[in-house]
C-alpha cells in the first residue's frame, strides 16, 4: 500500500479510537451462553437415539436428501445416487478417510481436486456434476451439516458443482451448534473456513417464492452412515 494510504489509515484509526476511548463506559457483564444452552429443553430431555431421528427430520425440512446406509454398504448407495441422477463427472478430495475406497466402489470414476483453483476453475465451473465431501458433524436441532474444508477438500468443492454429496457418520451428530463449538473447542484453532450448511442453496427474493439452486448447489445429498450402535440394521 502507498504511503498516503498508511497515513490516511492512521488518521482514521486514531480519530475513531480517540472518540471511543474518551467516553467513560464501564464494562458490562459477559453473557452466560453456556448456562443458556444447558437449560434448553432439547439438551435436557432428548436421548441420543432420537437425536438422529430429529436430525433427519430437520435436515429433510431443508430439502436435504438423506440416504441412510451402513458402514459396510454406503459406497454402493453413493454409486446408486450417481447412477440415478446420471452424474458424469464427480470431484472429490484425495487422501480423506473414504476417498480411496469410494473411488474403487465407483469404478475409478472420481476425479481429484488436486490443482489450484485457478487451474481447476474451468472444470469446476463447467464440467463437474457433483462434489463429494466429508462432514465434520451434524447438528440435530437444526438438521445442519458442519463442514470444515481442508487443503484436501477445498471449500469450492461443496459450493460450485450443482450437486453436493456429503458423507456423515451418525455418531458425529451433536445436539446443537453450541455443543460443537464448545466441546470441540473451535475457538482455540479456527480453520480458514468453517461452514454450517442446511440444505441446498435457495432464495425467496422473487415475490417470496422459494426457489432452490440460487448460486450454490441445487441439490444436497447426504449419505448418513449409521455407525451408531443401536441402529446397525438400518436399511441394510
Amino acid at each position, binding site marked *: 500500500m502507498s504511503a498516503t494510504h498508511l497515513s490516511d489509515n492512521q488518521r482514521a484509526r486514531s480519530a475513531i479510537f480517540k472518540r471511543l476511548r474518551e467516553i467513560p463506559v464501564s464494562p458490562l457483564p459477559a453473557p452466560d451462553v453456556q448456562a443458556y444452552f444447558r437449560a434448553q429443553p432439547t439438551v435436557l430431555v432428548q436421548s441420543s437415539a432420537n437425536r438422529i431421528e430429529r436430525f433427519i427430520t430437520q435436515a429433510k425440512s431443508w430439502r436435504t436428501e438423506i440416504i441412510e446406509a451402513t458402514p459396510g454398504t454406503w459406497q454402493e448407495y453413493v454409486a446408486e445416487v450417481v447412477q440415478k441422477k446420471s452424474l458424469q463427472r464427480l470431484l472429490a478430495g484425495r487422501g480423506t478417510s473414504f476417498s480411496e475406497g469410494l473411488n474403487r466402489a465407483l469404478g475409478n470414476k472420481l476425479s481429484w481436486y488436486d490443482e489450484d483453483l485457478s487451474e481447476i476453475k474451468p472444470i469446476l465451473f463447467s464440467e463437474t456434476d457433483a462434489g463429494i465431501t466429508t462432514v465434520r458433524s451434524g447438528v440435530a436441532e437444526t438438521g445442519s451439516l458442519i463442514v470444515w474444508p481442508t487443503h484436501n477438500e477445498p471449500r469450492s468443492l461443496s459450493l460450485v458443482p450443482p450437486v453436493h454429496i456429503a458423507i456423515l457418520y451418525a455418531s458425529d451428530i451433536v445436539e446443537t451448534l453450541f455443543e460443537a463449538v464448545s466441546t470441540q473447542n473451535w475457538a482455540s484453532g479456527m480453520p480458514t473456513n468453517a*461452514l*454450517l450448511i442446511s440444505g441446498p442453496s435457495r432464495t425467496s427474493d422473487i415475490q417470496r417464492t422459494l426457489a432452490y439452486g440460487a448460486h450454490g448447489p441445487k441439490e444436497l445429498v447426504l449419505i448418513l452412515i449409521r455407525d451408531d450402535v443401536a441402529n446397525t440394521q438400518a436399511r441394510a
Partner: protein
Amino acid sequence: MSVTEHIVRPEDFKLRSRESVADPKLRGNFRGAMDFLIDKRAAQFPDNATFTLLRKVGETTRKHALSRLPDLLDQLEINLQRLGVNVHYAENSADANRIFLEIAKKHHADMMIKGKSMVSEEIELNQAMATEGIECIESDMGEYILQIDGDRPSHIIMPAIHKTKQDIAKLFSEKIPGATYTEDVDELISMGRSVLRDKFRDARIGVSGVNFMIAETGTIALVENEGNGRMCTTIPDVHIAITGIEKVVEKLEHVVPLYALLTRSATGQAVSTYFNLITGPRRVGEKDGPREMHLILLDNGRTQAYREEKFRATLQCIRCGACMNHCPVYTRVGGHSYGTAYPGPIGSIISPHLLGLSGTRDLPTASSLCGACGEVCPVGIPIPEILMRLREAARNNSDGADQALRGQASARKMLEALTWKAWRILYSNSFLYRPFVFIATRLRWLTPTNQAGWTTSRTPLRPAPRAMRELLAQRNKQREKN
C-alpha cells in the same frame, strides 16, 4: 445503468410517503410481504418465554461487546493482522470508497462481484466506483434484480420486496440477452444464476458485508441462503469485507445465540442455508480461497451514537429487519420513502447519526409509537424510547449535560418553542392558569377552525365549555344542597 433517477433523499420523506400511501399496488406488495415475514417469525417463537430468554442472552452479548468496543476492536485487529488480513479504518464514506479504489487499482480490476452488504449501500459504493470506471455487480438475487433496473433496495433483508414476479419477468426479458419472458420463478432464478456464475468465475475482487466479527479468533461471520456470499469470499483472488465498527463480539460462542436470533427474526428460519465463518485469507497449501483479504471498519457517525448512553443501544442492532416487518408505518409507506440505506424503525434511529439530524429530522416522527418494533427486536433495543429522544433532540438545543448531535435542534421553530415556553409558564402558575382557563372557556367560540398543521388531517381543537375544576365545584355544591 442509471441510478440517479431513483435517488431519493430523507428530506423528502413526507412527500414520498404521501405518494406511496396513494399507490395501492405498492401497499399491497408490502402488506403481503410483511404478513408473510411476521407469520414466519411467529412460528419460530411459539411462546414468548422462550423468545424472552434467548433475547436476554442476545441483548447481554451486544451490550457487553459495546461496553468494551475499543478493546475488542484492538484485539480483533491484532488477530486479523496475525492471520494476514489488511485492516483499514474509515471515518466516513469517502475514506471507505478511497480504500476500495486503491485496492481495485492495485489489482487492475475494472469489476468487482458483490455479496449483500448494507454498509456498501450506506457508502454508495457502486456509484462511487462507477465514476472511476469500475463496475460493481450485485450477486444477491434481489440486489441483482434492482441493479439491472436501476432501482434501490426497499428492505434490508428482502431488497426487491416491492417488485412482483411479473415486474421481474418483464425486466429479465428486456435486460438479460437471450432471455424470454417467463413468470416461472425457478426459470427466472436460473437465468440470474447463469449470468452471475460467469462473473464469480472471472472477477478478481469479491466484496462482502459482515454479520458478526469475533475478536478472540479474528473471524468474520456471514449469514446467507443463496451461496453468493460464499462465492464472493471463495472464488476471487481478493476479498474485501466492509462493515461498521460496532459489529464485533468478544468470543466465538457469543455469535451462536446471535445467529439463532438473527435468522429466526429475519426470515423465520431456524438456520440459514449457509453460516460462513472466515478466519483469514488462504493459508499455505490450501487450493482455494482469496489470497488477499481486507477488512474495512467504518465509523460514519457510529461513534456519535456511541457517545451518549441514551443512543448507544442503537448500535446493538444485528440488522434482522424484524422492526420494519412489524412497523405499521413502514408497511404503508414502503422502504423507498425513507430515502436512506436503512429504512423502517432501525433506519429512523440510526440514520440521524450517519447523516445528521437536519436531513433526517422527519424520520423519528415516522412512528405511531405503537411499540411493536421494540417488542420484536431480538437484542432488546428500546426503539420507541430512542425515537422520542431523537424527536426531542431535533426540536431542542442540547441541555448542556450532553454534547449536541450533528443537526441538533434543526427542526426547532421559534414560534413553536415560544408557544411551549408560554404554555409552561401558564400551566405551572395557578395565578395565571385560573384566569386563563376562565377566559378560554368563555371565549371558546373564538377558536380558529384552521389550526396550522393540526387541522390538515384532524378536526379542530376547542376548549371545553367549562373547565373540569368548575364542573367539580358545581357538583360539590349540588351535593351539599341535596
